[in-house]
C-alpha cells in the first residue's frame, strides 16, 4: 500500500504541468480559472482545439482515436495538473467523458469513425438529454417518444437540465421507442445533431443568477436510422453504462477546484479575523479533513483493480462530495458575514464564495439526489430490500 505515484508517472506529471502552465500563463491567460461553463465560449472552443492539437484532449482514449492510451494513473495526474494550472472547466467534458467512452464501449466501428474524431479534435461539443419534467430522480420514467420513419428516427418530447445545450453541436437522448412500454424497458439511446429546426433550447435561470442549464424541446426532431447506440429498446443498459463513466478520474480534478474554494475561505478568514474563532477553526478542520479523505477515497477507488466487486468508496462518493461542498458553502458565508451578501457590482453576479453557497444547493440534487444516493447505497452496497415501485 502506497500513497504516491511512480517515478515514470511523476515525469509525466512534469511534462503535462509544464505545457498546461505555459498555456495558462501565455496564449490562454484570458480564460484562466473560469469554473463555470457559460462565459467566453468561443475562446474555450479554441482551447479545446488547442488541447486536441497537442493530444491532450482525451488522453485516456486509444491512440487510434486521438488519445494517448494513458494509464489510469496518468489520467489522474493530468486531471490534477489541469486543475492546478487553473485551466478552465472543459466545455466538452460531456463529449470527452461520457459520449466518447459510451461510443467506444457500445458503438459500431462506423459510429466510432463518425463521432470520435470530432470529439477528440474539440470540434464537436456534446450535451446530455436524460432528465425530463417527469423523469428526474425516476429517470426511467422517460416520456420523450422516438419512432422510426423510413430512414430516420423522429423524436418528440421535452428534456430538462441539459447543461451546455445552448452551444452544443450534438445531444444524446434516451427516448421511448416501444409504444406502451414502461420504466427501463423500451428505451432507445440516440445521438442527434442540435442544429436542426426540430430542436429548440431555452435557458433556465438558476437561483445564483446564472444560466448553465436549459430546457430542450424536441418537435419532430430527426436523426438517421443508424444513430442509435446498441439496439432499439436497449437504451437503459447503455445509459446506465454511461453513468458509470461519470465517476472516477474526473473526481480528482473536481477536488482541485474544491481546494481552491477552501483556500478562498481561509484567505477570507485571515483577512477578517474569523481565523481566531474556535468554532470556525473546528469547521475549517472538518472541511480540510473531508477534502483529504475525498482524495484518498478516489485513489482507493482507482487503485482497486477488481472493478467487478461493488466498490464502497465509489458507491458513496457522490453523496460525500456533494454534502461536503454544500457544508463548505455554509462555512463560506459564516466566514464572510454580511459582506458575503453584497454583490460587488450592479448586476446579480457573485464572486466565488457567495456563488459557492448558492450553487452548491444543486450539488445534492443533480446526478442523483442525496436521497436517491442513500437508496442506492443501501440497496447495492448493503443488500437491503429494494424500494417498491408505485403504479400511479
Amino acid at each position: 500500500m502506497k500513497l504516491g505515484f511512480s517515478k515514470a508517472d511523476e515525469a509525466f506529471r512534469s511534462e503535462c504541468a509544464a505545457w498546461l502552465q505555459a498555456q495558462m500563463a501565455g496564449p490562454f491567460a484570458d480564460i484562466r480559472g473560469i469554473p463555470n461553463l457559460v462565459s467566453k465560449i468561443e475562446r474555450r472552443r479554441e482551447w479545446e482545439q488547442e488541447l486536441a492539437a497537442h493530444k491532450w484532449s482525451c488522453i485516456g482514449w486509444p491512440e487510434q482515436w486521438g488519445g494517448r492510451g494513458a494509464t489510469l494513473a496518468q489520467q489522474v495526474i493530468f486531471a490534477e495538473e489541469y486543475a492546478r494550472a487553473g485551466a478552465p472547466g472543459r466545455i466538452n467534458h460531456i463529449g470527452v467523458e461520457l459520449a466518447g467512452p459510451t461510443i467506444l464501449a457500445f458503438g459500431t466501428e462506423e459510429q466510432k469513425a463518425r463521432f470520435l474524431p470530432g470529439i477528440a479534435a474539440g470540434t464537436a461539443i456534446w450535451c446530455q438529454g436524460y432528465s425530463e419534467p417527469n423523469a428526474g430522480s425516476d429517470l426511467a420514467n422517460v416520456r420523450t417518444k422516438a419512432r422510426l420513419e423510413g430512414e430516420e428516427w423522429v423524436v418528440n418530447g421535452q428534456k430538462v437540465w441539459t447543461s451546455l445545450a445552448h452551444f452544443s453541436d450534438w445531444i444524446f437522448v434516451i427516448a421511448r421507442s416501444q409504444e406502451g412500454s414502461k420504466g427501463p424497458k423500451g428505451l432507445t439511446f440516440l445521438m442527434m445533431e442540435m442544429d436542426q429546426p426540430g430542436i429548440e433550447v431555452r435557458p433556465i435561470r438558476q437561483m445564483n443568477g446564472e444560466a448553465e442549464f436549459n430546457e430542450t424541446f424536441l418537435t419532430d426532431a430527426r436523426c438517421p436510422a443508424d444513430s442509435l447506440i446498441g439496439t432499439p429498446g436497449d437504451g437503459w443498459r447503455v445509459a446506465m453504462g454511461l453513468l458509470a463513466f461519470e465517476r472516477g478520474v474526473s473526481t480528482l480534478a473536481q477536488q482541485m477546484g474544491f481546494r481552491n474554494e477552501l483556500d478562498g475561505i481561509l484567505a477570507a478568514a485571515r483577512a477578517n479575523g474569523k481565523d481566531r474563532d474556535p468554532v470556525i477553526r473546528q469547521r475549517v478542520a472538518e472541511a480540510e479533513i473531508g477534502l483529504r479523505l475525498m482524495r484518498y477515497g478516489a485513489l482507493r477507488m482507482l487503485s482497486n483493480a477488481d472493478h467487478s466487486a461493488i466498490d464502497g468508496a465509489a458507491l458513496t462518493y457522490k453523496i460525500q462530495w456533494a454534502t461536503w461542498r454544500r457544508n463548505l458553502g455554509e462555512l463560506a458565508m459564516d466566514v464572510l458575514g454580511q459582506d458575503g451578501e453584497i454583490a460587488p457590482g450592479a448586476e446579480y453576479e457573485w464572486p466565488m464564495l457567495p456563488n459557492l453557497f448558492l450553487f452548491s444547493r444543486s450539488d445534492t440534487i443533480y446526478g442523483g439526489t442525496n436521497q436517491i444516493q442513500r437508496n442506492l447505497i443501501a440497496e447495492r452496497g448493503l443488500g437491503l430490500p429494494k424500494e417498491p415501485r408505485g403504479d400511479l
Partner: protein
Amino acid sequence: MEFALTDEQAMIADTVRAFFAENATSERTRAAMEGAGIDRDLWAAFAGELGLAGIGIPEDFGGAGLGMVELAVVAEAAGAQVAALPLLGHAMLAQALARGGSQAQKEHWLPRLAAGEVIATVSWNAAFEVHDGAVSGTIAHLPHGAIADVLLLHAAGQAWLVDLAGEGVRRRAHVTMDQTRPLATVTLDGTPAEKLENGATAIGGLHAAGWICLAAEALGGAQASLDRTVEYAKERVQFGRPIGSFQAYKHRLADMMVEIEQARSAVYWAACAVDEQAEEAALALHAAKAFCADTYRMCAGNMIQLHGGIGFTWEHDSHLFFKRARSIATLYGDSQWHREQVARLVMGDPA
C-alpha cells in the same frame, strides 16, 4: 496507483479477521470484562501462534519488521470484535522504543514486547517529577494500567520507562465504563525511571502508533456495528416487511456506510503517510483519530437505536461497541483537540 492492500497485507488481514472472529467471541470478551479486561489466552495466542505482537518491531529485535499499515490491519480486526487485549499500550511502547530507545533499551525491551511477555501502558498529559532517576506523581487514566508491567511517561519532549514492579508503586483499578479496556490510576513515589535516549522521536512514535491503533480499532468497530445492524435489518419483520426496507431505516445505514468508507481512507492514509515519512503525516494522524472516533460513535449509537429495545440490553453486544467507541473518542486527545491541531497546521496558531 497502489493505494490498496498488497496481496501480503490482504493475507494478514484475512488471517487476523478469522483469528479474532473465531477466538474473541462475545462469551470470552464478557469473561474478560468480569476480570481485568484482558483475555490472557487470546493475548498468548495472538503473540505466540500468530506472532502478531511483534508486527511493528524491527526484525533485529525479534519482530516482524512491518509498518503502520500492518498494525492498522491488525487493530482494525481486533476492534471489529471489541477484543479485550492490551494492544494499544503495547503498540505505543514498541514504536517509542524502536524510534527513540538506546541500543541497550531496545535489546532489553523489544524482544520481550515481541514475545508478548510484557504488558505496557502509556500516559497522556501526566504531571510528574523526576529527580536523580526516580519519578513521583499520580498518573491517571492508564489503559490496562492495573495489570501493566511497564509504564511509559512523557512530557515536554522527554520520555521515561517505569518498571511497575519497582518500589513506590501503588495502583488503583477503576470500574470503567468500557470494561474491555479498563483504566487505572498509578501513584509513583520515588520509583526508578529510565530515560529514553531520544525522547522527541520516541514521543513521535508513540503518538503515531497510538492514534493509528485507535483509529483502526474504531474503523473495525464501526464496520462491525454496520454489518451486524444490516443483518438484523434483513431478518426483523414489522408492519409485514423487513425493517431494512423502510427508507427511514435504510438511509441511516447508508449514512453509516458513507462515514465508514471515509474512515477507511483516513486510517490507511495516515498509516501510509507515517510509513513513507510523508510531510502530511501529522495532519493525517490527527485527521484519522478525530474522524474515525466520531464515525464509530455515530455508528455504535445507530446500532443501538436501529436494534430497538434489544439493543439497550446487557445481553446484546451493542453496548460493547458503544462503550468502546466512547472510550476511543476520549483516549489520547478528543476530536476537538485533534481538529484544533489540524486547524493549526492549516491556518496557524489561533492568536
